[in-house]
């Protein structure tokens, strides 16, 4: 609750900041300060269960250690993102304050999506996430790619909203308890009533759309590619993780009982996501676009959480969110500084900026899932969850084979950085752009990844912390 209120408030603060603050650099600090505040407030709630304001939410939002931990992860990652990329936000356009305001609103939506307890809140949360994102995507107004991405995102996003609503309508219609509360849906033991079944599929589709699962992923590469890189970093990580969190939350609470009845759908989607995501990423020349596909591929792994829906899956989801977000934010932070976004643009980075190269390597190794990185632990938890589930063993094998394919495109960057010489005379990166603070932050990010890889318990223990 604390996070929701504070993000909303801070969004408004930032909005007004846009009016009063003329200095371009100031909003960043304001935003960071706010986020620290939010992070602490959320930490307070997670630790002691104390809410700043006592609001009767009529049980429409539900907080527990699980989603508070997730919010903490999301806020932490966003904080890191702000710290790393604050200056890059300034470069997108003149409405710096507004961008931050929008991001705060997105965060508010993230919190709602993490804590929702009724379909209405889910819907609102998703929309509060989506609408600012449409705008952020198109914020580089004179860039045609940004325009195009925004329009594509918007059209398809609205389309998926329609599908989601249709699903909600059917769920409501089929629910003999006539309720939108996700824990208040009467399903029964046997085969689902057809209305619920149809509603479930619609919801599944719309959630798949949000987490860019194949075949509802088509917006992802184009939008991630077209959007200003900082915002790509933001939406491909925290927002996406929130989508997954909502996905799992919805399907666990609402349809967990009839899990076997829709598991096949998840299997199809997961398999397709793993395959298409990894395969398509292989051929990409632009690192940014490759990371877009990689986010699809990683989504394939995260879908295991929905596939298994057990304790390990939930732990894995938190871990995955953190691991994936950290690594992707890190790699995007470096990518933004690059002059050339193609893989060849990374040639010889290790020589010029060894530290950047090392951290980038850690990020990429984590994304590949090499042991002792957070990426491994998260993948490991997902695989455990899937194996524990016991069904569809082949899917697990497909997943690891795809993980092997993923090594191909992640390692291409490592190869470029370390084993290839820069082609042009000009440096691949502007040294002046790389401040000491930036480097320190990258090291911190990398260290977090390693720490989570060595000792994921520090994060996961919060899940069982009684609020």
């Amino acid at each position, binding site marked *: 609750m604390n996070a929701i209120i504070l993000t909303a408030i801070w969004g408004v603060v930032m909005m007004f900041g846009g009016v009063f603050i003329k200095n371009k650099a100031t909003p960043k600090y304001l935003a960071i300060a706010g986020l620290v505040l939010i992070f602490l407030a959320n930490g307070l709630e997670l630790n002691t269960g104390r809410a700043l304001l006592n609001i009767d939410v009529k049980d429409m939002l539900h907080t527990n250690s699980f989603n508070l931990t997730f919010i903490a992860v999301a806020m932490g990652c966003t904080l890191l993102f702000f710290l790393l990329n604050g200056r890059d936000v300034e470069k997108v356009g003149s409405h710096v304050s*507004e961008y931050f305001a929008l991001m705060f609103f997105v965060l508010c939506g993230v919190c709602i999506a993490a804590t929702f307890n009724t379909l209405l809140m889910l819907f609102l949360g998703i929309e509060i996430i989506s609408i600012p994102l449409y705008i952020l995507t198109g914020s580089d107004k004179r860039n045609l790619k940004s325009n195009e991405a925004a329009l594509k995102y918007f059209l398809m996003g609205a389309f998926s909203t329609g599908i989601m609503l249709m699903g909600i309508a059917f769920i409501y219609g089929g629910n003999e308890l006539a309720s939108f509360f996700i824990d208040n849906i009467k399903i029964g033991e046997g085969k689902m009533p057809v209305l619920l079944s*149809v509603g479930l599929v619609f919801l599944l589709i719309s959630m798949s759309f949000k987490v860019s699962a194949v075949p509802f992923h088509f917006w992802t590469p184009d939008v991630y590619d077209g959007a200003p890189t900082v915002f790509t970093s933001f939406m491909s990580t925290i927002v996406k993780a929130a989508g997954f969190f909502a996905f799992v939350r919805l399907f666990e609470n609402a349809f967990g009982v009839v899990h076997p009845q829709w598991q096949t759908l998840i299997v199809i989607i997961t398999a397709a996501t793993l395959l298409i995501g990894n395969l398509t990423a292989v051929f990409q020349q632009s690192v940014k676009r490759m990371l877009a596909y990689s986010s699809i591929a990683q989504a394939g792994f995260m879908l295991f959480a929905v596939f298994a829906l057990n304790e390990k899956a939930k732990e894995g989801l938190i871990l995955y969110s953190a691991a994936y977000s950290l690594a992707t934010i890190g790699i995007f932070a470096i990518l933004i500084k690059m002059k050339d976004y193609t893989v060849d643009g990374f040639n010889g980075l290790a020589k010029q900026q060894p530290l950047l190269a090392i951290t980038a390597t850690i990020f990429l190794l984590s994304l590949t899932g090499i042991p002792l990185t957070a990426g491994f632990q998260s993948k490991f938890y997902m695989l455990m969850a899937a194996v524990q589930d016991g069904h569809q063993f082949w899917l697990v094998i497909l997943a690891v084979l795809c993980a092997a394919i993923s090594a191909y495109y992640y390692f291409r960057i490592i190869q470029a950085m370390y084993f290839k010489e820069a082609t042009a005379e000009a440096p691949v990166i502007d040294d002046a752009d790389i401040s000491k603070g930036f480097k320190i932050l990258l090291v911190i990010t990398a260290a977090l990844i390693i720490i989570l890889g060595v000792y994921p318990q520090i994060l996961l223990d919060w899940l069982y912390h009684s609020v």
Partner: protein
Amino acid sequence: MSITTIVFIILSVMAVGAALMMVSAKNPVHSVLWLIVVFFSISGHYVLLNAQFLAIVNIIVYAGAIMVLFLFVVMLMNLNVESEPMKNYRLQLAGVISGGSLLLVLLSALMKVQSTPVQTNDGDVGLIKKLGMVLFNDYVVPFELSSILFLSAMIGAVVIAKKEK
């Protein structure tokens, strides 16, 4: 056949027909107008279902505000010509076929639903007073939160519309 059924059929035919016209009209302005017709007929359905509040809101918000906005944009862009290029034939066909099969699939599944009566011309669930009570008792939080939506829409409009310095 009761009068309700007849009204239902008339409204339904109207809605579907207008929707089809909206989709197929070559001139965007015509599309907008047809959509307004759809909205009106849906409002008619609301009335039939005794959802008075929604019937009014639908007219005001949708047919009124939103569609005017659409019309405005269409006019602004000077798109009121009949020569809007259509997609190539094959894509159109594919779209119709897949959309149609989706319809068939859903219909064939959903028509197995047990027949349940719907309360028409009666009941107080859709009355303004009733809804007001519910909205401001139970739904305060979402109501407040939806303000964020509007705020962001507002900022969005600013960010996007305002000229870069």
